[in-house]
């Protein structure tokens, strides 16, 4: 494998890793996070706008994370406080993000397609890549060694036990979902101000779902999940590489087919893995006292 391909794999995996780690927090605490896709999308948009306004990718990503947190708060309000079905509410959040981003884009820049492009020197060049791996390490340590890490695990596995131990289950879940929003927002940010030069409509293109797949593949543990993201990232990098390459008879494979590759890998991996990876026991359930 050439160094190029490796570098490209690492780069395109970055948003996936952020989002998947975000998903880990929420799902380990018992809240299924189908909304990852929408959180990422809004994060990508807010980060692009933030960077255009402040001319700093750091502040821009702060915008992205804040937007993720905000939307995650709406999600948490519905599923934790109002006990809505998590799949339905998550899908609604995704649709909201898909509709909201072009709408605000139109208001701000009078186009629905994409934001103006961000000058090269105002974008991130490699920071998110290092950051996401530092975060993987931090998550491993955090889950293993801190009380809050333990609480999150129990909130998703046996919430009644956590409650009986004197910890408020729904408080833990709220925090976990908000953190999940921040990280998914950062994932979106690394898509718009690190991998590309602007936000474009629906630019997440299913990466939120791929992050969920990585979580399943990685058994909801930070390091294996990140490695699963690398696998999907690799498929994506290969796909980019193959575009325009003449394979046989001098004709290139149509781009549309090549672009299927990462999704195909996701499906195959998941199909081979279903039944062997078990989500936290209480995932998707509402916690009620008594």
């Amino acid at each position: 494998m050439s160094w190029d391909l490796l570098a490209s794999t690492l780069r395109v995996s970055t948003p996936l890793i952020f989002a998947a780690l975000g998903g880990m927090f929420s799902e380990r605490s018992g809240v299924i996070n189908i909304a990852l896709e929408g959180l990422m999308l809004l994060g990508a948009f807010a980060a692009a706008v933030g960077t255009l306004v402040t001319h700093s990718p750091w502040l821009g990503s702060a915008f992205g994370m804040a937007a993720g947190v905000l939307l995650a708060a709406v999600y948490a309000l519905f599923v934790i406080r109002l006990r809505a079905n998590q799949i339905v509410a998550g899908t609604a959040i995704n649709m909201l993000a898909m509709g909201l981003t072009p709408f605000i884009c139109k208001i701000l820049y009078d186009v629905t397609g994409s934001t103006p492009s961000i000058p090269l020197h105002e974008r991130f060049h490699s920071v998110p890549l290092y950051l996401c791996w530092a975060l993987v390490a931090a998550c491993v340590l955090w889950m293993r060694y801190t009380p809050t890490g333990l609480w999150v695990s129990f909130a998703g596995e046996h919430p009644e036990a956590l409650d009986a131990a004197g910890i408020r289950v729904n408080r833990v879940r709220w925090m976990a979902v908000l953190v999940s929003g921040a990280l998914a927002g950062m994932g979106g940010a690394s898509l718009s101000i690190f991998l590309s030069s602007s936000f474009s409509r629906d630019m997440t293109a299913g990466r939120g779902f791929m992050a969920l797949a990585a979580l399943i593949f990685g058994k909801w543990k930070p390091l294996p999940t990140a490695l699963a993201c690398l696998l999907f990232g690799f498929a994506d990098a290969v796909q980019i590489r193959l575009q325009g390459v003449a394979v046989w008879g001098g004709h290139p494979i149509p781009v549309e087919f090549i672009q299927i590759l990462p999704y195909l890998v996701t499906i195959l991996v998941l199909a081979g893995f279903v039944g062997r990876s078990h989500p936290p026991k209480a995932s998707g359930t509402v916690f009620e006292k008594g």
Partner: protein
Amino acid sequence: MAFETPAAVELRGLTKRFGSVIANDGVNLRIQPGTIHGVIGENGAGKSTAMKMLYGIFPPDAGEIIVNSKTCVWESPADAIAAGIGMVHQHFMLAGPYTALDNILLGAEPVRCGVIERKKARTRLEALARQYGLPVDWDSPIEELPVGVQQRVEILKLLYRDAKILILDEPTAVLTPQEANELFRNLKKLRDEGKTIILITHKLKEVMSFTDHVTVFRAGKVTGEMPTSQTNPQELANLMVGRKVVLNINVPPAHTRDELAMEVAALSLAGTVAGSRHKLSDVSFSVKRGEIVGVAGVEGNGQSELLQAILHPREPLCRTSGTVWFLGEDVTHWEARDIRDLGVAMIPEDRQREGLLLERPVSENFLLGLQRSSAFSQGGVLNSRNLLAAATQAEEEYDVRPRDLAIPAGKLSGGNQQKLIVAREFQRKPRLLIAAQPTRGVDVGAIEFIHNRIVRARDEGAGVLLVSFELEDILTLSDRILVMYEGRIAAEFARGQVSEGELGLKMAGS
């Protein structure tokens, strides 16, 4: 009395409603410090509910909780824990994939610089474990530990938090007699150190031998409170149920038919079901129609595996070899549906996992497995009128409380969940009944009832395989007793051939 010692716990007029059900209706309770206080009562009488309020799981609708002369209003269990109260719940509060150590520390982690100090905690726990004789493998995931050890973990949780008032909700329901004795040794020791212990149980023997005072609940109210020395099991049973209960039913001799109800030959199992340590090796026996065969044994000696191999014959991971015949048919490779159609009824070991859909209403749970019978469905459409009528009648006959077909089965008290399953399974007029722990967690009245039903099924011609850790079930009901030890059948006795003591010895492998 002028100098009455202040109570460790006092409940005054505690009331709690769940929808239309009044779970606690003005409960008054005084518990002296440094005593073991028994709490008994029928299934659904409100014992767990009262204790959950004392522990802060949910707030009372009315009434006062007074701990050490202070009126307390709990926001959450955290407040109760801070006041020195600890509780072992009826259904354990342990998360399977996490280690025993983490389960104990949860919520009370010693922390330095944001990091859990597991080493320090472990040193303290090891000292506690030595002091009370409660050895636990700290690093094993809970799901790999036998139930008896899980119980130790629950108790260590309380000791670790230095609880002064210990609530134990049916701690012996899942323990073997040996494990229960060990538990009571510890409880006495704790009491002698000055701790106050509240013990909920359905076993009157335990109340008589180990408690200082006893309180009786009935239908959400306290109907009696007395020093244990001034009462006897029969009086307690009558107080609980509100009528005269026959503690030891009389079982007439069996009229065994020659027809076999079931037979297993050379059953062997390689893998083990979580929590037990023994495989199944070369087990063969048969049950005739009109006969009750009891399988006795200390938990973890292959009973779960035996049931697994008989009830889930098609599970590829579970059985390696052997044949199972039900009512003359080789059912080794049959579908559950066809086995059911033969006239087989079963009371599963784990009622919550295998016997009920906890989220679904009682009526649907009653229908489980009967959904194709022509009484309840015509042309693929459910006949809800018939279903509701039959379910209402069964609720009445089997005394499932509350009489509400619409509430989710998971909201029934533990004993009532069991009665619901029993009602459903007897409804099929079985020719073969496989009953695993049929009286787990049910009150004395219900035990009497279930015992009578099993005998009646036998007398109507059913073969019964009874697997139970309760020696009382085994000795009362079985026409033949098989003793399992380390995955084999170690001994066989006919009715009346063996005493409780001898049976205990055989179960321990001597």
